[in-house]
């Protein structure tokens, strides 16, 4: 038990130290993300008549924040696996009786740092455009609950990608496209009730849509599509299921690695 505590300590220390040592790269990443987001958000805001900004702006802002949780999980966990594998870290960690999974999950810390700092900057851009009311939140508890559930899902997704890239190469473009599509179809940017019916039925089966509805309830009291209790129930079950699958998948993939060797090419 104390051994595991020391391990977790080591992993947290490693990621924070590396975050600090690579600070310029991370700064560059944050800036890049913000700028790209701003380009598209400004474009999207041009569709909204000025008098509706007060409702739509916070929804767009939180959509972006939630989307960042998704994309940083994909890039900072899934994308980093390429480096992790190619540097022989899978073997080096196994030799210390440490599974690579917690080390990769630890990367979520880095992703979180990036998400939080860039979200603050995006919030600043929004405040400049629409005034400070955009930052107000109805009920912070629901926002927090929604974000925790969403994070559980996105980290699990990041781990699926990591496990996959132990075996095969995943083209980066594909991940980018999946990310972008989730922005709308995953119900991150748009309340489910506002989606056209055909798209909505797709969104309902994408896990992220449900915690997103909880977050939006917390932000502006928008009634979740399936009702608050149902959304919480569904999100919790799905999040737990996704985490369990990630755990089992890693067990399977590590056995596979021991049998066939690590032959990952990672993303292109």
């Amino acid at each position, binding site marked *: 038990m104390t051994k595991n505590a020391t391990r977790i300590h080591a992993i947290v220390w490693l990621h924070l130290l590396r975050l600090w040592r690579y600070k310029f790269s991370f700064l560059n990443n944050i800036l890049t993300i913000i700028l790209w987001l701003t380009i*598209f958000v400004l474009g999207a805001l*041009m569709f909204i008549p000025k008098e509706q900004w007060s409702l739509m702006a916070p929804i767009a802002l939180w959509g972006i924040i939630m989307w960042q949780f998704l994309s940083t999980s994909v890039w900072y966990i899934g994308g980093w696996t390429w480096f992790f594998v190619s540097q022989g870290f899978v073997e080096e960690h196994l030799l210390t009786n440490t599974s690579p999974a917690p080390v990769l999950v630890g990367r979520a810390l880095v992703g979180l740092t990036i998400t939080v700092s860039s979200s603050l900057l995006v919030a600043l851009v929004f405040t*400049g455009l629409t005034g400070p009311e955009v930052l107000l939140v109805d009920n912070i508890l629901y926002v927090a609950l929604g974000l925790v559930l969403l994070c559980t899902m996105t980290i699990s997704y990041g781990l699926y990608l990591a496990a996959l890239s132990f075996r095969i190469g995943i083209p980066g473009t594909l991940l980018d496209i999946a990310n972008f599509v989730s922005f709308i179809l995953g119900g991150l940017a748009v309340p489910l009730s506002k989606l056209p019916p055909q798209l909505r039925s797709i969104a309902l089966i994408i896990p992220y849509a449900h915690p997103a509805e909880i977050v939006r309830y917390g932000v502006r009291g928008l009634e979740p599509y399936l009702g608050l209790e149902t959304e919480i129930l569904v999100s919790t079950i799905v999040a737990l299921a996704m985490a369990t699958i990630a755990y089992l998948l890693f067990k399977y993939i590590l056995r596979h690695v021991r049998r066939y060797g690590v032959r990952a090419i990672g993303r292109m």
Partner: protein
Amino acid sequence: MGVKSTDILRAGFFGMIAWLKNNRWLLFSMIIWPYLTAFLLIALGMIYGSFETYKERLNIANPILYILAGSGIVMSSLFIIDTVATNALYHRWLGTLPYLMLTPTKMYKVLVLEPLPGALLSSTMGILAVLPGAVYFEGLLGAGKLLIVLLLVYMGMLPLIGLSIIVASITLVLREESNVAAFLTPLILLVSSVFYPIDVLPKVLQYMSRIFPTSYIVEATRMVATYSIPEFRALFIVAYALLALTLFYNGVASIALSGSEKMVKKSGVI
């Protein structure tokens, strides 16, 4: 000077072909990206608000086509800067940079010419990908307009290459493995205000936009999108602006390159 320009271009061409062979996804993504970003923006906009509002705000005739062309411009500029700036980094990874540095004039030539075929191809792909959309919406006239945009992108490529070499010089000095000046690309595109009127930006950024070539390309594209027959006089002004920027950036770039070369030689980080 043993190396001829045509040789460098040929080398760049074959390098590009080999690279595309190993990165088949890239070709696909060049075609898909303008549509994907346009789709995303339009879908989001329609859900959040309405097309009518957008049309009014930007004062353009066909917003869908305009957004498609705008995405094409965004992608093309991104590809150009990326190709040129990362090319210098590749040389460092490959270990050929020290060899290039021995003759600074040649280094500049190589850094400009070698990525040129790739930059030409990718920017052409970025714009031509939109062609089906243009023909669908406006027939031959749409295709003609798009060709004007392509021409503008080609003209804008020259100052962009100079700009990219400045970026590359900075990266070389900063001794980072990845392109740490990557944020410059979206910054340039942000101030070029492709998808929104420039007046939504703070004043500082509006002034800043004047020094970046993409702003002029966007401006001209919007002119083409606004009137059925573009005003050629206005287009010529844009062309002159791009020419001036070409001279300016490539001048600065050659100074920056020899500066960074000196610094790199001194600190030994190659």
